[in-house]
């Protein structure tokens, strides 16, 4: 890799240039690279759960199908759509920041947040249904169900729970960049925070893209 840093001397430093960087470019590249490295850690974080998923699915293929059939694939599908829509609004928000269009930024960030909140509301109703049907692992778990199903639901709750937690954090970030965008902070010179938040949001979407078929759609052909 070639030496990436160059001593570009900027005439008057941008007000958002932190003192330990040479240039806005260097600063932007550092934050995008930083976010990507962070996302690698996120991949591994969810990866541990997927490992457990693979092992137990291999051990209990039948229970997996049975348990998956208990999930509501329609709600899962709806949520997939919701997240995909939030991804395009997020992408448009980043674009708006890059071209310095404040109104578009605000609209798109707001839309993204609303879609994210919708996802969480749907998720809430799904969880509620699981409680009512005694599908939450632990002492109240329906004992008549075959071995392996309880593990499926443990993983279901941990995986979707952590995913939902990421969504909540994402909404917090959206609130922050919304306020900043309101103040007109972002423009063609300085949009790193929006870009980086976008990377995070898309990543959370990707996790769901895998969770949806792996959790919800196994039981569909049987039923």
């Amino acid at each position, binding site marked *: 890799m070639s030496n990436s840093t160059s001593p570009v001397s900027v005439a008057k430093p941008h007000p958002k240039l932190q003192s330990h960087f040479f240039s806005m470019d260097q600063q932007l590249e550092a934050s995008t*690279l930083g976010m990507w490295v962070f996302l690698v850690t996120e991949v591994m974080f969810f990866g541990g759960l997927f490992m457990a998923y693979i092992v137990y699915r291999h051990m209990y293929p039948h229970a997996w199908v049975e348990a998956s059939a208990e999930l509501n694939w329609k709600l899962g599908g709806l949520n997939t759509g919701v997240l995909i829509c939030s991804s*395009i609004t997020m992408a448009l928000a980043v*674009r708006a920041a890059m071209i310095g269009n404040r109104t578009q930024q605000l609209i798109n960030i707001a839309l993204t947040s609303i879609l994210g909140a919708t996802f969480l509301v749907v998720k809430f109703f799904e969880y509620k249904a699981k409680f009512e049907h005694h599908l939450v692992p632990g002492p109240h778990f329906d004992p008549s169900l075959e071995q392996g199903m309880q593990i499926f639901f443990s993983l279901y709750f941990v995986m979707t729970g952590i995913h939902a937690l990421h969504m909540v954090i994402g909404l917090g970030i959206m609130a922050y960049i919304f306020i900043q965008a309101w103040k007109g902070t972002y423009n063609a010179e300085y949009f790193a925070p929006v870009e980086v938040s976008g990377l995070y949001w898309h990543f959370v979407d990707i996790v769901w893209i895998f969770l949806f078929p792996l959790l919800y*759609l196994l039981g*569909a052909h049987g039923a």
Partner: protein
Amino acid sequence: MSSGHHVPTIGMCVRVWLALLVLTGFTIFIASQDLGVLNTPVALLVAITKATLVIVFFMGVKWNTPLTKTVAVSGFVWLLILFFMGMNDYLTRGWLGVAGR
């Protein structure tokens, strides 16, 4: 300054978005068909395609430095290490046959 930074077009965003929605519909549809052993591979293939679309276009990897591309790929490569070396154990537990026979 940010000359090197690619501004995505709205058209591109919409096309990717439509592709993602279509693929979601497709994966739901295909799940209702019994493809035998192909069930999981097909579902995964669709999911991987969708994820790739998001990574390449929405996350802008396409217009990013080789370093970022490497980083983006490396996370998944490492995950595969975990899966392969781990499943090495689970898939070969019966390797020696029945002990003593």
